[in-house]
């Protein structure tokens, strides 16, 4: 087994994944190291990789002319980053900047998509795992939107 297999095998995203699956994932895998303060990708760029974070912290960011750089969410080690690679137009919607030095395994997006087409069982498992991440992020985002810590105004409901 190669080094990135070990990282992937221990990563929460791949918990419960059958050993046969590795033969489809491994060819797509590479290592990535990013220093703190550097961008992993920018909004609008092609979404070439699915990032499996094993160390460090990444800030998801948006940019507005008036507001400047606006933080959206921080992603930590043990999380995964990015799903824009799964659907056309395969372009990033936000930018990602490293806040603490990042170690990650990157999975080549077109390699993953081809593997899904060739093996639908694998495709189902991958998309299901991504859907779970999407669900968790959406729930968390909704909680963020509720602004629950604001001082409520009397009687305003």
């Amino acid at each position, binding site marked *: 087994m190669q080094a990135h297999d070990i990282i992937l095998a221990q990563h929460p995203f791949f918990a419960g994944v059958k050993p046969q699956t590795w033969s489809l994932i491994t060819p797509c895998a590479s290592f990535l190291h990013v220093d703190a303060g550097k961008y992993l990708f920018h909004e609008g760029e092609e979404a070439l990789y699915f990032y499996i974070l094993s160390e460090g912290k990444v800030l998801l960011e948006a940019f507005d002319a008036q507001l400047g750089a606006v933080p959206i969410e921080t992603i930590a080690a043990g999380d995964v980053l990015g799903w824009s690679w799964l659907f056309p137009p395969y372009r990033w919607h936000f930018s990602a900047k490293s806040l603490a030095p990042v170690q990650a395994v990157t999975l080549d997006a077109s390699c993953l998509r081809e593997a899904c087409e060739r093996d639908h069982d694998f495709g189902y498992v991958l998309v299901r795992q991504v859907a779970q991440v999407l669900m968790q992020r959406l729930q968390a985002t909704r909680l963020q939107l509720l602004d629950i810590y604001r*001082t*409520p*105004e*009397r*009687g*305003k*409901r």
Partner: protein
Amino acid sequence: MGHLLQIDDVIIIEREQLQQLLVVLQEQGYTVVGPTVRDQAIVYDTVTTLTDLPVGYTDEQDGGIYRLKRRTDGALFGYAVGPQSWKHYLFPPRIRLWQARREQDGFQIEPERHEMQKFAFLGVRACELHAIAIQDRVFLRSHYVDPHYQSRRRNLFLIAVNCGHAGGTCFCVSMQTGPKVTGDFDLALTEILTPERHFFVVQIGSEEGASMLQDIPYKPASDEELQQAEAVVARTAQQMGRQMETNEIKETLYRNLEHPRWQEVASRCLTCGNCTMVCPTCFCSAVEDVTDLTGMTAERWRRWDSCFTMDFSHLTGGSVRASASSRYRQWMTHKLASWIDQFGTSGCVGCGRCITWCPVGIDITEEMRAIRADDATNAPQNH
């Protein structure tokens, strides 16, 4: 006369002699409070002679309906309960808890000096006796003792009365609180009125009760008189105006908190809170801190409150129970279900006041029936 009266003795007192009991009580420093007629209803007020009672009156009650009517006889207790309950005296609608005075450096608090008035309650019905016992559990035998309730409760002389006339909305039989008087009382009366005689079968319930009657003319009750008393109670038990199934009532309500009936009753309920005011066990209160225009004195008052008010469950930003359906649900499930978890008994004594005095005639027994009929356990588990 002559034999020393004891607890559980049953004696006969003629109607004319009963007045003596009031005299003895007053001589002993008791203020006698009993049913009187006022504003076309039976309300509790000071009673000095038997003629202050609603002699020859009866009542007709139904959902949202209360009428006093004349009887053809001179019964002293020929009616059921009116809008008031004894909580008016034990847990008054408004009392001051303390006063405070601003001083050079802060303030000084003066606790309230309460007159330790001795009350004798004349005419406590079986359901009302249970209601007093229920409030005793709330105010005296919970985590804290309420000193204001305690001081009023301590010197109470209780004369209970077995009902000879069931109210139109009564269901004490269902709630197992009557019509026969059980519990802690000093004396229990059963009024027997025939064309030939008018007398009272009196059960001694305490030493104080025995000593009050010691010098009043009486004779021991005969077997026939005892049977007449039993017959009165048995007849009343057959006349119940309402019925409530109590089997597993707590579990049933707890699993039906999302029942559509709550929305349905909310379309009728005005959230006026009448039910909580007439109910003999409702105990919710509001604490009010007030000051005068100079700001030099402050007072803390306690007054009755109702879970039906919009502000009852207020938190910054709004009330937890904003909808009428949630507030009706709170009242009914508290009364019939969570009360059992809190205090070990039901909060309802089956007096029927909430049914009679609801302006739109909402009937707690009917609401319970509707929920049981469509119980969540019967519904297919599809959620």
